[in-house]
């Protein structure tokens, strides 16, 4: 299943192994793991709670994966995103992309995480010594996603 939202942790080896299993064309696996940092905007983070919008989340992630598959010559792609309560250093998200060659796998992997950050309905709430607070969106994430925009009339999404 290429897109999953779950409370439990994931094993990167097992997930990437399953993603590339049985396809002998695969020579390259690009992966991204996002983890809970201990320090965010200068405040120590004790725990973090991830909320999402069931129904929309899976649809948004699948649309991002489909767009990546249409733009790059890759074999397969996987997104796993955790929700619920997480502690510093916990894994949050895994993006894995398999392909025959590494350039396209890297590009598609970075495309997926950049768009997940701006289009997939997840929200982080941090518990800090000063109390709980919702994490603000970053302008740098919008910039990261915007650089993938195709020129008007360019090759399709």
């Amino acid at each position: 299943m290429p897109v999953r939202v779950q409370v439990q942790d994931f094993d990167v080896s097992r997930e990437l192994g399953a993603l590339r299993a049985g396809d002998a064309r695969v020579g390259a696996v690009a992966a991204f793991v996002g983890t809970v940092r201990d320090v965010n905007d200068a405040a120590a983070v004790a725990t973090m709670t991830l909320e999402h919008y069931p129904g929309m989340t899976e649809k948004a992630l699948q649309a991002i994966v489909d767009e990546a598959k249409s733009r790059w010559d890759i074999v397969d792609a996987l997104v796993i995103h955790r929700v619920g309560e997480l502690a510093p250093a916990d894994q949050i998200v895994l993006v894995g992309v398999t392909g025959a060659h590494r350039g396209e796998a890297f590009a598609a992997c970075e495309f997926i995480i950049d768009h997940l950050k701006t289009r997939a309905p997840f929200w982080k709430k941090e518990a800090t010594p000063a109390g709980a607070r919702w994490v603000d969106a970053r302008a740098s994430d919008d910039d990261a996603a915007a650089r993938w925009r195709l020129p008007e009339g360019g090759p399709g999404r």
Partner: protein
Amino acid sequence: MPDTPAIKIDVVYLARLREAFGVGSERVEPPQGVATARALREWLAARGGVWASELAPGRAVRMAVNHDLAGPEAPLRAGDEVAFFPPVTGG
């Protein structure tokens, strides 16, 4: 006009908005003139108080119609699910 039946819209609030409003979802029956996502936002903001402040035009509020991100001019139809939420922060 007064006899036209109101349409029903399911509205969902997420993250900071859910907490601010104290409600996660509700079924509303806005007047017939409320035909776009923007109009629905303005109609909800007209409730005043935290509704007015959180949904004020200057606030960064994102909208989705039937689980797709939607711009302010997205049309609404009876039975649509419309979500209001802050900019996303996953990943």
